């Protein structure tokens, strides 16, 4: 074998992966964009270029409503999940003795099917479900609670459960990286535990927090299964509408337009978030 430069080896070895992913990201995107300018009437696809889909998507109150709800639900899920996960990540990184065991315990439930976990919540929160029957049996309530299932609350709860390890792991990694001598220095300089946390630990974990937020927020905006199973009509999100366009409504051009608009709004929110997050991080420091 001929000796080649390291760079050439790097390119050729990573090429299958980058080309595969690059192709499957770029090609569908190009076709989606093309579709978004076409129109569909029943079975015929009209390939003359028009902005009709965009006009329809931007003026339809249902689309706006679902898009805003998707973003707000994903935002709520992100905040709840990260807030609940931080203490656990802190516990595992700083206090726990058997770190591997804890990390394993946290990840095991997520090796089970996502669909089944969401389904489990549907069974738990249902009107005649596990939670209501248990509370009735214990005599804590007199009639089944109806606000548990088929609303935004159920969607946020289910997603917060589903995404937990994705919040714990990045924060854990950033906590692991903190140099213990920094913490000692803070203590030596007269900081108490709370001050030390606010001045040293928290600012140093902001990259982990931002990563956790993005990892949860972006996929959650486009989640299909959870709103479909536990959302009811009050908890439907944009993905459900997109699926309808590609399925029952058979209006692929509109579906493509909605997909693109969802992608753009997610990207926009994510970029704004990263910029403000980084600013905030610098200010604390």
């Amino acid at each position, binding site marked *: 074998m001929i000796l080649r430069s*390291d*760079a050439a080896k*790097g390119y050729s070895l*990573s090429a*299958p*992966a*980058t080309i*595969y*992913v*690059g192709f*499957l*990201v770029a090609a*569908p995107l190009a*076709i989606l964009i093309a579709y978004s300018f076409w129109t569909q009437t029943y079975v015929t696809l009209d390939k003359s270029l028009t902005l009709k889909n965009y006009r329809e998507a931007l003026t339809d109150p249902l689309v706006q409503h679902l898009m805003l709800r998707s973003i707000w639900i994903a935002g709520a899920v992100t905040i709840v999940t990260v807030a*609940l996960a931080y*203490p*656990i990540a*802190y*516990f*595992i990184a700083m*206090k*726990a*003795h058997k770190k591997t065991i804890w990390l394993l315990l946290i*990840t*095991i*439930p997520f*090796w*089970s*099917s*996502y*669909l*089944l*976990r969401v*389904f*489990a919540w549907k*069974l*738990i929160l*249902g009107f*005649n*479900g596990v939670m209501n*029957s*248990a509370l009735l049996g214990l005599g804590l309530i007199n009639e089944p609670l109806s606000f548990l299932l088929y609303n935004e609350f159920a969607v946020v709860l289910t997603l917060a*459960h589903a995404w937990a390890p994705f919040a714990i792991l990045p924060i854990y990694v950033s906590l692991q990286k903190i140099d213990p001598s920094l913490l000692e220095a803070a203590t030596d300089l007269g900081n108490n535990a709370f001050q030390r946390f606010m001045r040293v630990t928290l600012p140093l974990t902001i990259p982990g927090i931002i990563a956790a937020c*993005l*990892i949860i927020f972006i*996929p959650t905006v*486009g*989640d*299909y*299964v959870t709103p479909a199973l536990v959302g009811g009509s009050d908890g439907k999100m*944009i*993905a459900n509408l997109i*699926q309808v366009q*590609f399925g029952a409504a058979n209006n*692929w051009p509109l*579906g*493509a337009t909605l*997909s693109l608009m*969802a*992608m753009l709004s997610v990207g926009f929110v994510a970029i704004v978030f990263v910029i403000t997050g980084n600013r905030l991080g610098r200010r604390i420091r």
Partner: protein
Amino acid sequence: MKRPSTLTGYALLYLAFLYLPVLFLPLFSFNSGTIVAFPIKGWTLDWYRKLGEQDTLIQALWNSIGVGFVAALLSTAIGLFAARAFVRYRFKGQRAAEGLVMLPLVIPGIIVASSMLVLFLFLGLKPSLVTVALGHIFLALPFAVSILKSAFDDFDASLEEASYDLGVGVFETFRRVTLPVVAPGIIASILVTFTVSFDEFVLAFFLSGNQPTLPVYIWSQIRFPAKLPNVLALGSILLFTSVLLLVLAEYFRRRSSGKGT
């Protein structure tokens, strides 16, 4: 730990929050009543017995295993090259390349699914298990690359250099030096990517056509209350299988790291 702190208490509560919902599936799969609620009427294994009689389920299971196998092997193979490139060599645009490969992790599922459906039909590929596998390789690749990257991280490059110095060729060196050391990473990657594919729903829902994978089959059953006990039994088996795979992966990883580097 000197004394159980509030943090420890919180951690235990959190574990309960993680585990309890999932554990209700196996619990109620043994319930002889068809309604999923307390109190449990009686215990039975009937729902498990009935699973074997359902031909569509068995077919869906084989579909999932086939797709999972192909997706696991191919994503791990492609990921192996990429991981080695990323850890061992420095090149221009490396960060961009690494970012690109991680992209499938963060694109919302519905967008991946709808755009691939459009692409595959454009290319003349009818929705089938093949298109599902192609999509799953895409989704599994980031998992493969990150697992294999950490496997190569632990690998001491001077071992390879020593092998070259002793006159051993590139392929022989890879087989006799590199492969044994990164083997646990490869096994872990295959197990993880298999599970990613095996459990994936949205993409398979869009791309499987009339060849449902197991999650697509489960989805079709969830709507009918009468089928609920069957779904519970099937789901419990799947949960158990996933955990078993993870424990196995952990066992292999530890055993080989004990005698390896």
